[in-house]
C-alpha cells in the first residue's frame, strides 16, 4: 500500500520554490505534505498531493520545463507521543532496513497519531514488517482524505 509522491528538481536559487508553488497553486493543486532536500547547488522538492491529481500535476510540471518524477513511498502512522517515532525506527533498524528520507504530514488526522512519509531501502520488506507489528500504513485514499 504505497502512496505516490512527486519529486521535482530545483536549482538552489532565489524564487525557485515560490515559482513552483505558484504554478501548482494556480492550477488548483493542494499540497498535503512537502519536504525539501537541498545541497549547495540544487534541491529536490518532494510533494504529496491528492492521488487523482498526480498525473495532471506531473504533466503540468513537465509542460513547464521542470524535471519531475513519481515515486512510491510509504505513509505510516506513528503514535503522537514521546518515543512514538523512535519505536518505529527501532523496528526498521532491527529488520536491517534503512530510511533514505522521511518527512511528516502538514496536517494531522486530529487524533493521537502523526503521519510520517518515508522512503526505505526495501519498500516491500518494510510493508511486511509494518503489517507484522501492526504499524498502520495509510492508503492513497486515506491520505487524500486527511
Amino acid at each position, binding site marked *: 500500500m504505497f502512496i505516490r*509522491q512527486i519529486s521535482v528538481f*530545483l*536549482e538552489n536559487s532565489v524564487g525557485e520554490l515560490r515559482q513552483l508553488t505558484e504554478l501548482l497553486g494556480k492550477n488548483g493543486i493542494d499540497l498535503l505534505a512537502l519536504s525539501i532536500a537541498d545541497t549547495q547547488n*540544487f534541491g529536490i522538492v518532494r510533494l504529496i498531493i491528492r492521488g487523482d491529481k498526480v498525473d495532471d500535476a506531473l504533466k503540468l510540471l513537465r509542460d513547464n520545463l521542470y*524535471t519531475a*518524477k513519481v515515486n512510491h513511498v510509504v505513509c505510516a502512522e506513528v503514535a503522537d507521543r514521546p518515543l512514538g517515532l523512535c519505536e518505529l525506527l527501532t523496528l526498521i533498524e532491527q529488520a536491517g532496513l534503512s530510511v533514505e528520507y522521511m518527512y511528516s504530514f502538514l496536517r494531522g488526522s486530529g487524533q493521537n497519531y502523526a503521519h510520517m512519509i518515508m522512503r526505505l531501502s526495501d519498500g516491500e520488506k518494510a510493508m511486511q514488517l509494518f503489517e507484522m507489528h501492526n504499524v498502520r500504513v495509510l492508503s492513497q485514499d486515506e491520505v487524500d482524505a486527511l
Partner: protein
Amino acid sequence: MIYMAQKQHRIYNPAMECIDREQLKKLQGERLAATVKLEYENVAVYRERMDAAGVKPEDIRTVDDLKYLPFMEKTDLRDYYPYGLMASPKSAIVRIHGSSGTTGKPIVSGDTRGDLDVWSEMMARTLTAAGCTSEDIVQVAYGFGLFTGGFGAYQGADRIGAMVLPMSSGNTQRQIMMMKDMGTSILCCTPSYATYLGETVREMGIDPKRHLKLKAGCFGAEPWTEEMRQHIEELLGIDACDIYGLTEIAGPGVAFECLEKHGMHINEDHVIPEIINPATGEQLPYGTPGELVFTTITKTGMPMLRYRTHDICTLTDEKCACGRTLVRMGRITGRTDDMLVIRGVNVFPSQIESVLVSAEGVAPHYMLIVDRVNNSDTLEVQVEMTEGMFSDTISHIENVRKYITDQIKSVVGIASKVKLVAPKSIPRSEGKAKRVIDNRKL
C-alpha cells in the same frame, strides 16, 4: 619595468640566433627539403596527401615552396594516434610526450635522441635569453610527466649546466622553502602559478629583494597579459619572460622572449613559422595578424609539416635590440577554434560533450564557465538535469554528478565543478551553440 636594471643580453648560440637572414633562408630550405623527403618516405598518410595535391618531395627546395604542401591538423594526431605520424622506427624513439586532444584520447609526440637534443638547445636558448648561466639555480615548477613543461625546462637548464631543482608543480610552501634555502635564481612555471607563488611569498612576509635570490622567470603554457607580467615582476622582483611551445612541435622553447620583452623569438633554424588566413589557408605577410603555422625542419621522430596551431598572432622581422635576427611572434590574441587553455591544459568543449553523450541519461546541453579565482583557473560545467539523471534522493543525484566530474577529469585531465541546472535553462542557439563563457581577464 623598474626591475630591468641593466639589460645585459646573453645569447646561447649567436651563430644561429644572430644568423644572416639570407643564410638562414638557405639553411631552412635545405632542412625543409630533407624533412619533406623523410616524411614522404615514412609517413603513409602524408605521402597520400602530397600525392593527392600533386606535390613531389623534389618540388620542395626552398622556403618559398612551403606553400605547396598540405597542412597538418591536431585531428591528424588523434586520427593517426599513437604511431601513425612517426617518421622513425619505434626503436629510434626515446621519449613520448603528450597533451589532451580534441576528444577522449591524448595526442602524443615521439622524440628521437636528436629531437631531444634540438629541444634542449631551444630551451637552453630560452633560459639564456632570460639571463640564465651555469652559475644559476633553476627551479622547475612545471609539471613533470607527459606534459612537456617540466622536462623541457629541465633539459634546457641541464644543457646550460645550471643547477636544477626539479620541483614539478604544486606544494607551494615547499616550493618557497626550497626557493629560499637553495637560493633559486630562475623560476620556470605557468604565469598564473608564478603570481600565486609571488602572492604567497608576500603573505609569508618574505621580501624577495632581501630573502630571495630570484632574478628572472620563464613563464608559459597559458596565455597571459602585460598586466600580469608587471604584477609578477613587482611581486617577485624579477624579469618575467614569456615562452611559447606546443607538444606537437617540440614543447616549450619553440619561441622565447629576450629581456627586451618585445615579442618571442622563434627558433627558425629548427622551425619555420608562417602566418596564414585561417579561412583560405593563404600565406600572409609579416605584420598581418593570422593563424600561426609551424613546420619542423630538424625533427626526425615525428616531423610536422605546416602544422596549424589555431593560435592567432602577428610575426615581425624587425631587428631586435638584443642582436638576434630571429623573427618574433607577438602575444597570442585568440584562437581560430574553440580550444581553451585552463591551468595550462588544452581543453576542447567537444571533450566535455563526449563525456556527457556517453553518460547514460545525460543530455549533451552544457555550458562551460571559465574564471580565474585567486590566480588559479576554475572550470564550472553546467549540465541540464534530465529525467534520466533525476531521482528523489540526493545521494543518487550526487553520484551522477560525481560520475560526470570523474569522467571529465579522466578525459580532459583537469578538475571541474559540475553544476546541475534546470532543464532548458542553457540557451539553445541556431547553428553553432555558444558553449563557453570565459570570464578570465586576459
